[in-house]
């Protein structure tokens, strides 16, 4: 139980640190309460929800693709959500937020299903080819999006959700992220099924599980979490990759057991990076996506190299 306690403790500390930090001074009285309620608390909650959701989406993605090195932000889910947003901006410029969200979810779902179908056609599920294909697949979607945006002067617009940041989060502008939280709870309820699906279609069938249903549910969770994150705060790389890999080394792949740790570690990572982004260049801010890219990539490379010793 110790890692969970440790993470929970760290998370609480980070939570209060995040509340205390900001460009404006936190005074006393009603002003302070107002600042907390409108800005600091929503921002902190947004970071935690996005982090937990993406970590869980990452692990589900890995179970469905049966590969440890994929995550929604690199294999096209996030890019597809962006493509959907650009399409809405062009075809129905005045559409309400919920409609944009819905389109983003739908396109994320389609693209992720497409990726998984592609993975099934790869030779012997070569562990290297899967993430490589995912990155190229995501690259194509990003290129198409970039092309459309460039032709229609929307580059500025896509830049906003290509690079995740929380500085714009305020009361009334982040609530959709609670959907990601809900998706996390759903994932926990069905944790055992995802674990079994991770062992393959044949294993699922022989245990009497409908592989198709689990697949569909997993796809839905991954798309909802990713689309919601992209629309409200922008793309956050590496959370879905680094956190599940570390959690799997600590706790194994039994999701029922590892999900709580996973979700809180994801929340902690994003919150830490957001806090760092607020401190490093004070009083300016560095987007959390950039910090995550640096820290996440560094940790991941360290992990890859570290595995050499026991594999060798």
């Amino acid at each position: 139980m110790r890692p969970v306690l440790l993470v929970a403790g760290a998370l609480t500390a980070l939570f209060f640190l995040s509340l205390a930090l900001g460009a404006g001074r936190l005074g006393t009285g009603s002003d302070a309460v107002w600042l907390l309620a409108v800005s600091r608390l929503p921002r902190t909650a947004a970071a935690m929800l996005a982090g937990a959701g993406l970590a869980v989406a990452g692990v589900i993605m890995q179970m469905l693709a049966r590969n440890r090195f994929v995550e929604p932000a690199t294999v096209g889910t996030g890019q597809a959500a962006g493509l959907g947003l650009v399409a809405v901006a062009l075809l129905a410029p005045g559409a309400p937020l919920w409609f944009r969200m819905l389109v983003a979810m739908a396109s994320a779902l389609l693209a992720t299903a497409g990726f998984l179908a592609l993975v099934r056609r790869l030779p012997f599920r070569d562990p290297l080819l899967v993430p490589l294909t995912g990155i190229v697949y995501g690259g194509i979607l990003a290129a198409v999006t970039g092309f459309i945006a460039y032709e229609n002067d929307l580059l500025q617009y896509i830049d906003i959700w290509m690079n995740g940041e929380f500085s714009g989060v305020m009361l009334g502008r982040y609530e959709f992220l609670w959907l990601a939280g809900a998706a996390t709870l759903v994932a926990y309820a069905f944790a055992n099924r995802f674990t079994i699906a991770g062992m393959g279609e044949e294993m699922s069938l022989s245990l009497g599980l409908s592989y198709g249903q689990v697949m569909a549910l997993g796809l839905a969770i991954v798309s909802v979490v990713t689309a919601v994150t992209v629309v409200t705060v922008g793309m956050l790389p590496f959370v879905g990759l680094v956190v599940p890999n570390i959690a799997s080394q600590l706790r194994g792949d039994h999701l029922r057991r590892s999900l709580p740790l996973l979700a809180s570690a994801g929340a902690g990572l994003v919150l830490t990076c957001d806090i760092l982004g607020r401190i490093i260049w004070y009083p300016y801010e560095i987007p959390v996506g950039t910090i995550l890219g640096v820290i996440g990539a560094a940790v991941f490379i360290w992990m890859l190299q570290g595995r050499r010793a026991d594999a060798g």
Partner: protein
Amino acid sequence: MRVNVLLIAGAWYVAAALLFLTLGARGDWGFILAFRGQKLLALTVVAAAVAVSTMVFQTITANRILTPAIMGFDALYVLIQTMLVFTLGGAGAFALKGMPMFALETALMIGAAGILFGIMLRRSEDLNRMVLTGIVLGILLRSLSGLLSRLIDPSEYAYVMASSYAQFTNVEGDLLWAATGITITVLALVMLHARRLDVIALGRDNAMILGLEHRREAQRLMVLVTLLVAVSTALVGPIVFFGLLVSAIAYQVAGTWRHATLLPLSALIGAGMLVVCQTLFERVLDLQSNVLVVVEAVGGLVFILLLIRRART
């Protein structure tokens, strides 16, 4: 047979170049040819540099789905550019603009690439780990550039932005001539290695058994690859999948494994393709968008098709 393939590719390039120079030209021919000629040269140099560096890199790593760009070489160059602007400041960077800057960047790039990729390639038997490390390293380098560029004054930031997206619109004259010179020299050097590349393609152990100092050869070739990447990135910015597309086509149509044919073939195919795309874009479709974006998307598609086809056989 081999000569034929090269001749056809050569004809393809010449036809593309003529089309590019003449299509829709009106008015003062001297001006048009000079203007378009310079652009044609830029397209050709970039395509040749990307195609040949990709092919050599694939031979060294005994792998046909990796490219220097996928492994993060381009990202490294952009990071070095950003770091220079960061440390020198906008004024300093502006003072060095053009050739001195390019020389400095390239020198730093060769040093950094030597260290980073030397470490990575030492373990080149473990392909999976090497590739993943490379890809993630690319993301790390890109994020670091992003981080640094946030720390740079917004006014200086514009300078970095201009160099981190691939485009053919703002190639500078001086730089182009230097890049052409370097590219021709490096290509000549690579061609001298053609026979050795045939042996290296058999894999590290086999190459050593056949008497090649594999490590030294690979290092030397890697410096040449780095130079080519530096040239193309300095001219137009990072290009990720184009090299993959060209090398895949070259292997398909070559019908040979000899680098003496493969290398010039891929350069000609790539240059012809880029020129045709640019012609289509500028003259036929009249699009303002960047041709490389489309070439990149097509390159990515080809990559995935290749994988699936390989799975079937």
